[in-house]
């Protein structure tokens, strides 16, 4: 590990960060477009070509607003909460492999993953659990009853669904025999995607991801009709923008993790039969990864505009009485099948 390695890693971080920020902006656009199409509308089409610059106009407007902190709020935690949210949302992508093939640049082998740690999944689960602090602290520090309720809901919801999420991941880990994300992806070569091997785990994991990212139908922490804006009621300007960014960045992360764990990551079936040069392999794998993530992002938005919000007791029922037993049963069945094989 010398200076060049550090520089290469830094370059990767900057590139990934930039791509995520850009994608968040365009996700806001696609979200509005998809919701419009589902409701037989056209959607934003005034700013830029077909409204593509709409999110940038929104961001500029948002940043020009006054940054308000309520008098009774805890100033320090009120500022800390959005930072926690965004840090967690952004750092999860560090262990996700974007392509399997590596290429050589400046006499060094460059892999397309920022940090190929051997406890990749543990790292992701640990970080996503941290995300709950951002929401809960923001709800508490605002000193507003609706924010507090939103924060409490988010903590209850995320803790409940983390169990199901962790248990469904165990199935994948058992199949692949490793916690390392690159190994898990390599194990899903050809059509042996974990979606096929672990259909039940796939569904529970996807549902739990929806709950973890606070997306509809599990967007209770920010349920507008009952809680004003939920945990971010008392936020404005830059801090609100950070929460907004974190929500969409979480969506990207969740899609990337789902792709990596269940949709075969960068795997393109039968790509090795074509005997392509290395650079073509890298591009094909990157493209496959991006397309899969884009599809998952579309599913996220599609579901949001299809399914209405759950009631709170339904949410808890689903989490503890349905998801948890199913995920547990999935672990047992997977273990039995692996033993018998």
């Amino acid at each position, binding site marked *: 590990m010398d200076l060049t390695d550090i520089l290469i890693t830094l370059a990767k971080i900057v590139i990934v960060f930039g791509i995520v920020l850009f994608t968040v902006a365009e996700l806001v656009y696609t979200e509005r477009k998809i919701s419009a*199409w589902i409701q*037989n*509308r056209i959607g934003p089409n005034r700013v830029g070509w077909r409204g593509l610059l709409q999110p940038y106009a929104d961001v500029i407007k948002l940043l020009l607003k006054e940054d308000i902190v309520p008098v009774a709020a805890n100033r320090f935690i009120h500022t800390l909460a959005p930072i926690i949210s965004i840090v967690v949302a952004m750092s999860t992508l560090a262990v996700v492999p974007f392509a399997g093939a590596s290429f050589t640049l400046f006499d060094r082998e460059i892999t397309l993953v920022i940090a190929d740690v051997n406890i990749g999944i543990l790292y992701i689960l640990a970080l996503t659990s941290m995300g709950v602090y951002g929401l809960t602290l923001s709800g508490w520090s605002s000193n507003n009853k609706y924010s507090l309720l939103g924060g409490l809901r988010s903590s209850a919801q995320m803790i409940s669904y983390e169990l199901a999420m962790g248990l469904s991941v165990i199935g994948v880990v058992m199949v692949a025999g490793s916690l390392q994300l690159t190994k898990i992806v390599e194990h899903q070569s050809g059509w042996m995607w974990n979606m096929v091997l672990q259909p039940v785990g796939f569904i529970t994991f996807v549902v739990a991801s929806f709950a973890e990212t606070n997306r509809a139908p599990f967007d209770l922490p920010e349920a507008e009709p009952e809680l004003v804006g939920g945990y971010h009621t008392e936020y404005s300007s830059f801090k609100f923008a950070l929460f907004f960014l974190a929500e969409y960045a979480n969506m990207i992360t969740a899609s990337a993790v789902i792709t990596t764990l269940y949709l075969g990551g960068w795997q393109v079936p039968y790509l090795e039969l074509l005997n392509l040069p290395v650079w073509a392999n890298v591009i094909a794998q990157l493209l496959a990864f991006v397309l899969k993530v884009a599809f998952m992002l579309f599913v996220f938005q599609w*579901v949001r505009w*299809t399914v209405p919000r759950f009631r709170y007791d339904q949410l808890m029922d689903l989490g503890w009485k349905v998801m948890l037993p199913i995920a547990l049963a999935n672990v047992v069945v997977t273990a039995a099948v692996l033993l018998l094989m």
Partner: protein
Amino acid sequence: MSSTTVNKYELTFWEKLYVPEILKGMKLTLEQMFRKKETRQYPEEKWVPPASFRGAPVLVQEENGVERCVACGLCSRVCPALAIEVQAAETSDEKERFPALFEINMLRCIFCGFCEEVCPEEAIVMSQTYEMAFTKYEDAIFNKERLLTPVEQLRPRLEYLRAHR
């Protein structure tokens, strides 16, 4: 206390599984995405109201350029929002009287159409204008020159009024 029993709809096994039902819903929304869009691109594409529409009240201007109004003041009298002011004056024309001043305060007008209903001369009718935005109070008070509208433009409304008298 009286009570009613509501028959609760029992879910079938497949409906209780959630996932197939959600997939059905997703299929429905996906189909909606490719339907015809209902949006009207407003400033470029304007809505043309039907003749029954009550837009801004206007004064009917005959082909010879004179208003029909005889300044009887009934519209001003019937107006529930007190939006109309009429001052009469005499003229050598056949109608003998004409409004020297005719003002409608569009901020007060509630588009009820009573003035049009009460007018004995069909001189004040509700037009199809619905775009009224003002930046100054003074702009919202329409004087006679602003209210006068050639009779050809108001043909549909006048026919509608006759048909439904």
